[in-house]
């Protein structure tokens, strides 16, 4: 098991280097604009552009620039500085990460609890009114774009522009340590909106998986042996949950890299918005930093999921 974990971690590092290289190459080749030209302004003297390129290190061969970046990243955890604000990318990410963590963890709890509960009930009461209502709602939530749902929530419930004025609206986010209650209430709507679509997916997934499992021979055998229904359901859920768990790991990894739409609609200063802004303004260091962070989260989530499989499903063993 230890060897497996070490191997996965090394593969993860290799993947990070590859992601780093791809980001590096894409943002220098694709037509997003030369940062030196953006900094130099209109009608710049060619010498000025060259000097800025030198200052920003853009005059070095791509491979050297890449090597410098890797060295700084792996040996000093230095992600460079924003071309615009001159702020350290590391501190910029550190500042926004708690925000994105707050958003993602809360939403994940909601969608896992909500999605699994609804899915399990639906699977156990298949074709009942509850099942049909639940699955219909899930389909609706799946079909609704996140940003639209966000607007609807704001127009209904936000205490500034909403009809009912019961929850803090867009731009109300404060840090957990600043005011825990305000933090909690400001995130209720974003959590619900972010969780809605995923909860629907989980509900449908667990329903079909559990329904299939409950029809397995070993479940029938357990019933025939007189095992209590509660214990049977627990067994069934444990078997059915594996695909859900895989998806959960991936999805949390992706969201930790930033939930752009929800962060934008609710004006939450997280990683996603920062990444989007950096892409639009060709702020390479910030783009690289945030993309690397997202990749790291996805890789880490995958490793955690793979390891956790062993505990969830005794049939799985690692070499």
């Amino acid at each position: 098991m230890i060897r497996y974990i070490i191997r996965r971690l090394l593969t993860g590092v290799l993947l990070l280097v590859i992601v780093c290289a791809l980001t590096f190459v894409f943002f220098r080749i694709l037509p997003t604009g030369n940062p030196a030209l953006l900094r130099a302004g209109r009608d710049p003297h060619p010498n000025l552009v060259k000097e800025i390129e030198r200052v920003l290190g853009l005059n070095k061969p791509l491979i050297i620039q890449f090597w410098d970046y890797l060295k700084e990243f792996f040996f000093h955890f230095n992600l460079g500085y924003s071309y615009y604000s001159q702020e350290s990318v590391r501190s910029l990410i550190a500042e926004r990460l708690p925000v994105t963590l707050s958003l993602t963890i809360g939403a994940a709890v909601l969608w896992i609890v909500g999605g699994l509960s609804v899915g399990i009930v639906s699977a156990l009461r298949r074709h009942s009114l509850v099942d049909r209502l639940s699955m219909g709602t899930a389909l609706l939530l799946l079909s609704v774009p996140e940003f639209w749902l966000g607007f609807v929530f704001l127009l209904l419930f936000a205490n500034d522009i909403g009809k009912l004025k019961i929850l803090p609206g867009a731009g109300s986010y404060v840090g957990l340590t600043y005011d825990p209650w305000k933090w909690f209430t400001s995130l209720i709507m974003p959590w619900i909106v972010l969780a809605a679509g995923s909860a629907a997916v989980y509900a449908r997934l667990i329903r079909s998986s559990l329904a299939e499992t409950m029809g397995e021979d070993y479940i029938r055998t357990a019933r025939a042996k007189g095992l209590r229904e509660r214990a049977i359901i627990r067994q069934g859920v444990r078997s059915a949950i594996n695909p859900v768990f895989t998806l959960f790991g991936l999805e949390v990894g992706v969201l930790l890299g930033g939930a752009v739409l929800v962060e934008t609609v609710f004006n939450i200063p997280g990683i996603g918005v920062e990444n989007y802004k950096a892409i639009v303004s060709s702020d390479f260091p910030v783009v690289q930093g945030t993309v690397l962070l997202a990749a790291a989260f996805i890789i880490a989530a995958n490793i955690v999921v793979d390891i956790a499989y062993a505990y969830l499903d005794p049939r799985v063993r690692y070499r």
Partner: protein
Amino acid sequence: MRSYRSLVAVASAAALALALAACGSSSPSASSSSLGTSAALSTGGYKSPLTEPLTGGKRGGTLNVLQEIDFEHLDPGIAYFSVDYAVVFATQRPLYSQKPNSNEETPDMAEGPPQISDGAKTVTVHIKHGIRFSPPVDREVTSADVAYAIERGANPNVATPYIQVYFKAIEGMPTATGGPIKGIETPNRYEIVFHLSEPKGQLVADALLLPLTAAVPKEYAEKFDKNKPSNYANFQVATGPYMLKNDARGKVLGIGYVPGKSATLVRNPNWNPSSDYRPAYLNEIDVKIGGTSTVLGRQVLEGTNIVQNESAVAPPVVQLAAEKYKSQLEISPGAGSHYIAVNNKVGPFDNIDVRKALWAALDRTAMNKARGGELVTNVATHFLYPTINGFEQSGGLKGPQGPQFDFNAYPEGNMRVAEKYMKLAGYPDGRYSGHETLTVVGSSGSPAEQDAEIVEQTLKNLGFTVKFTLVEASTMYAKYCNVPKEEITVCPSVGWAADFADPQTVLNIAFNGTAIVPTGNTNWGQTDVPKINAALAAAENVVGREARAQAWAKIDQELVEDAAAIPFDWDKQANIEGSDVDGVGDIWNVGEWDYSYTSLK
């Protein structure tokens, strides 16, 4: 050309002429005649920077500002974006600046008007006594601080975007890379002299209202300017009525400005009101960054002490404001222009008559409706737009008149006139019969996308085969329209906002054949007419506001006669404010709110 984004659309409203002279402006220098006629400045009865009183506001209070996008640069030596200017001009005092309702230079740090002498090769400015930097610098500003501010602009670590455009004539500037510049002399603590290598004193004098001339203390800023790039913005000191909140060491980053999150402006304790014309009513300005313009707009309209500071308020919000919150909507004319750049160098549009045919066929009214109609646009008939010196001399709203301008006489488009020009171009049946496929690259997103589609349809009506591509605006410029070798035939919606009201800032770079560069080219149509180039060069050296207006208006008319490009829209900026705000916008800064004049009720 400063950064700004396309204006937004609302339902059209009846245009009511405003009697500008009686608009309530209390500023003695507010001059409607210098801005244009009342018709050109009409805002349909809505508030405008020209109608808002500049005195009598209530002192005190905190203004909350919502803005979707972050600032680009808050360093006065780098700032070049209308949203940045709202903060920079509240915290810094350049040598000259403009009152909200005027496009004329008012001495700010300077004691009086610039003195142009020596055949327009010397510009002398005397600066006021008793102006002090904010903490932690605290000392009095001298002419050496202004000299350093300009010198650092040439330092690649700072790289002022417009320095070589307006200050190139200063001796030593073209090769400057930071450090003393031969042509900038400070004979004493309160005098600065610019020695020029060419007689461009008027242009340099006009450009002294750009934020580059805001004093920077060398002994304090030099260490920050050595960083690559400079991080002086994060430790900046102020000379204006407000300053970005800082700590005892002067650090602004993370205190008065948190990128992507907020900015906090507080009163500058060292500001001397007796030396400044700004009233500075507010105690504090809290800027919150992020969100979506639609939500922010609603928050503002239903809020109290709050404004939205945006380069473009969302169209549905402007519409809502126009219908339900009329007193909270401000319309600012003269907020830039849009035109269709057609390739004058290669392809069918190298023929002047084909260009005229497209101009004649185009339904410019439809294009403007896509942008919101009369409330936020005027149909453009030439290149100098309202509030720019020379606009009236070039024909005002109607544009140049005469039979030679018949292609410009039909805002809704006229296919018969278009066919006439196609025939003159050598296409006997009035439609294009060649085999070239036109490459049209437009900007995605409303309203530029709708404009591009109208242009595409018009080209098809004229018989062209079109390869039509829409990309993100920055890509359209950086990859296609700014790169001559891409040989794009038509860029259907390019925009321009002047750096100041001098007509040279609108016409020179955009149509000067000698200014065409391989990348970052803003002469999008690659207009390169020797006669026009010569006229541009001569007009650069003209001294005197009226004389320059005449000279540049003539060039403007020549450009129309040449159909160098096809102007279709003169923008007006829409701004919104909460119910308890007496907002004042800056006519010279595409209508952005002026925090030094805005007050709470």
